[in-house]
Structure formats: C-alpha cells, structure tokens
C-alpha cells in the first residue's frame, strides 16, 4: 500500500522516534508545570525502554528523552503517567528473568527521568508485567505473573494485581484475582482452550490471562478486565484485598478469543470490548470491537460491533487486520467522549466511530498511512492510540513507523 487512505483526518506530523519506531501499547500525555506537553511512549521491544516526545507544538514534535532497557531479553510494552509520575511495565521473554515488574519515574524534569521505585513480580513462572493502568496516583493495576503464582497452563500466567504505589519506595501488592481454574491448586477445572496451540510457545494466543485492567475515578469500586480468551470481567474492588466478580461476558467461542480492552461509558451504561487481532493475514478474522448494553451490569448484552472494512480488501495486505487498542477516556489531558470512539486497527489504521446510536455505530473518520520503511510487514500496523483533550490524535505503528500525529475534522 503506497498511499494514505483518509477521511476527516489530517496528518500534522510524523516522528519515527530516531529509528526506533516500534511503538508498544502505552502512550500517555504529561503537561508539565511549565506548560510543556510530553507524550510518553512505550516501545514494542528492545533496545529502547521509553521515549519522551515533546508535542507542545503537535506539528513539530521532537524527542527529548529516550531510555535504554537493562538488557535485550525484555520489553516495556506499557506505561502510564499521572501528574509527574511515570509508571513503566517490564516484561521478560523468558520465565524467571529480571527485571520484571513496575518501575516508577519522577518525570518532573522530563528530559531527565529519575527512578523512584521498583516493584518486582519476577518469579519462576512469571514473565513480569505486560500491561498496566495508573490514573489516580495511588494504585497501579497490572497484568502480570507473580513470584508465588504457578499457572496450570504456561500461558495463563498474567493475573490481575493491584499495587499500592502511594509510597513509591515501598510499593506493595494489596489485592489480586485470577480466572478460576488457572492456578495450580484451584478446585475449578482448567478452562478449555478456544483454539489450542503448542505448549512450547510461551507467547501463544490461547490463554486465560489478563490483558488490560481499567479502573476509573467515576467507579473506583469497579475494575474492567479484558481476560484474553476468558472474555470480559467486571470486578468489585471496593475491598481491594478481595476482588469479587460482578459479571462476566465472553463471545469465545465461537469467536476466536483475545479480549483486550473493556471500556465502560458510564453516562450511557454501555461498555466497549475489543478483541485483539494476533495473527497476520486475517488468520483470526474477525477480531471485533463489541458494544455491550450494560444497564444491568450483571447481565451484559452485546448489541452491535464497530464496523470493520471489508476483509477481502484488508485481510491479505500484510500484517494484522482487526481491533486492538482503544482510546480509553482516561482522566488527565485526554479526550473524553461517550459518543466518539477512536481505535487502532492495525493495517486498517486509526478509525473513528460515532456511537450516538449504539445499535448502529457509524464510521466517521479514518487514517491509514502507507506501510513504513523497515517494517516487518508491508502495511501500517496501528498498535496504540491516544487522543488529547484538544482532539489531537497520537497513534503508534507496531514495527517501525513511530508516532503519527493527526487532527480530526469531525
């Protein structure tokens, strides 16, 4: 694909991050007390840890900070910033390696991040933290293995953990939950695999492990979990030491699994659930984003999906095609909408939907740039998206394209 496909979106800037343009699943915006706006970016893989991009002028972004990982057998796929505190997830490629866990940085001087604490989740059955959520300055919610958690199935290793970070130098786990039956010793049976894969591949998709955990100030007593093949969970975390299931919804099977994000729209009693595409060339098509009626949170009902472009047009262009990360309406300098939904759809680019009629979501804008140079695949692979409070869209390519800065005309 050699030309940009777009509707109601315009590219303002494109930054390939100094040649390290593989963007992971973390983007967060900091506005410093001097008014500088810094987009913190997680990388898909080594050697870079995270990048700070000055986006004060979104038409002229520039790198002000780029850090290195401790070694090449790890990644920091996810990050969040609240105020001047940056939380970074460390995941390792082999069980038992270190560092695996969460590191906090003081980024009040964004050109010189200072480590202020580390919480290890390393252990013989742990790969560390894949994703984290940190919006209140007090608790980090992580998808991670743990030193004392032995999964029955090697790929069921990331469980939900709540980390109290009010004292960054002494972070501690205050609560955890996992899919019943996935821990060695559970009385429940191991959940049946949706599409079984060979056991020797640690990163396989047939997993009952946590991906995203979203907790919003509107409902601090609720955690919204995307539990990969386990589907979507709402947990009551009013007692953080003892999370309890409020409800569970899963389209798997017959749908091919990998629930990623569970995002509530509180003023409308709706929930969006994205299933991540994890295979190239539409091998796991369709990977949908579901719209759930959540008026009764104990009985979630699917009412529509965000329409995807035709599989015959996008499915075999190269790379992944389907749902992935959504802009998550997080607090802070962030676009918040219960009608306009913005998502990253790999080779279908960034897509913007109007959800005014939740029974018939409508595509109102999109941006699909050409495949970037030096990518593993010939297409763009939009992996992550963040929209600021002014409606400026920041999107990251998974392999090489770096960050695309766009404005919406909607």
């Amino acid at each position, binding site marked *: 694909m050699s030309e940009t496909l777009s509707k109601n979106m315009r590219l303002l800037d494109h930054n390939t991050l100094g040649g390290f343009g593989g963007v992971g699943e973390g983007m967060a915006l900091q506005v410093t007390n001097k008014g500088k706006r810094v987009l913190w970016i997680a990388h898909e893989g080594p050697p870079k840890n995270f990048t700070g991009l000055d986006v004060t002028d979104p038409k002229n972004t520039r790198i002000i900070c780029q850090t290195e990982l401790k070694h090449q057998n790890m990644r920091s796929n996810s990050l969040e910033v609240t105020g001047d505190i940056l939380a970074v997830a460390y995941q390792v490629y082999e069980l038992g390696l270190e560092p695996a866990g969460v590191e906090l940085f003081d980024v009040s001087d964004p050109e010189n991040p200072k480590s202020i604490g580390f919480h290890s989740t390393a252990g013989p059955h742990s790969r560390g933290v894949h994703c984290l959520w940190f919006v209140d300055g007090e608790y980090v919610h992580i998808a991670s293995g743990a030193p004392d958690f032995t999964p029955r199935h090697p790929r069921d290793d990331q469980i939900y953990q709540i980390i109290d970070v009010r004292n960054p130098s002494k972070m501690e786990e205050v609560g955890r939950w996992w899919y019943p039956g996935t821990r060695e010793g559970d009385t429940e049976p191991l959940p049946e695999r949706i599409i079984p894969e060979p056991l020797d591949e640690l990163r396989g998709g047939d997993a009952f492990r946590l991906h995203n955990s979203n907790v919003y100030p509107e409902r601090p007593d609720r955690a919204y979990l995307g539990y990969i093949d386990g589907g979507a969970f709402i947990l009551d975390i009013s007692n953080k030491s003892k999370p309890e299931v409020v409800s569970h919804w899963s389209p798997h099977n017959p749908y091919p699994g990998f629930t990623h994000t569970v995002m509530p729209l509180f003023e409308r009693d709706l929930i969006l659930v994205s299933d991540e595409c994890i295979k190239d060339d539409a091998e796991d098509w369709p990977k949908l984003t579901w719209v759930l009626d959540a008026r009764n949170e104990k009985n979630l009902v699917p009412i529509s999906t965000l329409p995807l472009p035709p599989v015959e047009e996008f499915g075999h262009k190269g790379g992944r095609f389907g749902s992935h990360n959504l802009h998550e309406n997080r607090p802070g300098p962030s676009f*918040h*909408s219960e009608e306009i939904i913005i998502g990253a759809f790999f080779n279908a680019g960034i897509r913007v939907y109007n959800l005014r009629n939740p029974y018939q979501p409508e595509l109102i804008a999109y941006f699909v740039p050409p495949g970037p140079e030096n990518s593993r695949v010939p297409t763009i692979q939009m992996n992550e998206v963040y929209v600021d409070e002014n409606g400026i869209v920041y999107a990251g390519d998974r392999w090489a394209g770096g960050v695309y800065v766009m404005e919406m005309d909607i």
Partner: protein
Amino acid sequence: MGRWSLCHGDGYINTFIIYGLITNPETVIKRLETDLSKQTECLTSNLAIVNFNTSGFRLNNPGWADLKNAGPINIDSTSTMFEIVREKIKSKISPFSKNTNSFIRDYLDYIEVQVTKINISKPQNELFDQYDWIFSAWLPLTHTHILIDELNDKKPMEFAEFDLCYWTGQKILCINLGSSSSIIQSKQRKIDYLKKSNPLVEIITIPKNIILKKEKKFPSEFFDTDFKEFWNGLKIPLGPNQPPVLSQYFSDQSIK
C-alpha cells in the same frame, strides 16, 4: 420535492425541532414533507414546528402522544393520568442516556411539587384542584435536533443537538446536560450557528456536578419564574385528553 425556507422576509421564523427516539432526524422531515408544506406549526410525536405565533408546548398539548389509547387502565384520577403522561415522556428517552433520564425524572417530580403552590380561588376550587394544573407544565422535547439551515435540495440537512428543549411560547429553552464528553467541533459549530441565527433560542447548560448530585433534585435555579410558575396567565387547567375545540379556545385565551 418541495422545501420551505426557515426565515421569511419579515423575520418570521419557523423552527423545525425533531425530538424523541430517532436515529436520523432528516428522515423525519422528509417523511412528513408533504404535510408540512401546508402548515406553519404543528406538534407530532417526533416533530415540532414553532414560530413567534405558536403557543407554548405543555403536557396537555395534543399531538406529542396519543393518550386515547393509553392502555386498558381505568383512568379515574388525575394522578393516574399523570403517571401515563410520565411513562409517555420516558418512552421518548434513549435507554442509553442516563443524564436525560434522571433530569426528566426530577423535572416530573418537581412539577408535582410546584402545583401544590398554586392558590385557587372560588369558584374554581369547586371545579378543580391544584393537581389538575400539572398538565399545564411545559412539555420536554427530549433528544432535540433543531434544523439549522435553509431547507434545500442541494445539501444534507444539518441539525444542532441538545439533550432536550422546551418551547414556552417565547423561547426555545435548549438544555445541555453537563457531560464529561469533550464536545466535537462540528457539534459546537452547529450550536454556535443556531445561537447566532435564531432569536428564539436560549441555551442553558447545567454542569455535570449538578446533574450527578446524589439527591434527586431538579435544578430549578437554572430556570426563570415563567418556567417554574407555568400556570401563570392560564385561566383554567386542562387535561391532556381535551377535545380540540376546547383546546383551541383556551389556547387563544392564554397569555403568552
């Protein structure tokens, strides 16, 4: 296809308000186009046309709901009829609009309290009681879409959107219920255009923290006395199932 101008040469303005549970306001206008071309004012279950000469829309206006077929209920009291009206209004609110639902609930509770403040003198008190006035309260038109441009065949219709509105005979009170959603440019542009071009429109924005307050209380402080004392200027209370002749007679008698 025949179309009509919103504005006439003498400043006379027809404002087209589409409301209720609709997915595409343009289809409502198109469907009714033939009939509309013969009228300058009307109130139907999802469309209202108002101008300077249109009396305010109250709960007892015919057209917005068919109350004759309200169900196999013995309507033996004003309160039963009001419950039916309440349900009719609720049926025009999206189940996915918590703010509008709670605002309307609080409004309907509020007007029940307001009517208790009415002084009724003889001989009216032998015919009516205070509660009968409840159907004189202003009619909320939920999920309001107001046509903002000339109707012509050349371009798609455009609408300014509000959570609800009231037509008081003098103003279209357009209500924005505070939301945490960032407003998008096109929506704001249409609202700005409407504000500039239509002298009937007054916009009231009620902040999110007021809407979300735990106690169920109608935010009356955002409304003026004419709104709150909706019975002022009316001679007698009328119910919602009034004969058209009576309706027309008392409408003409009302003080606007």
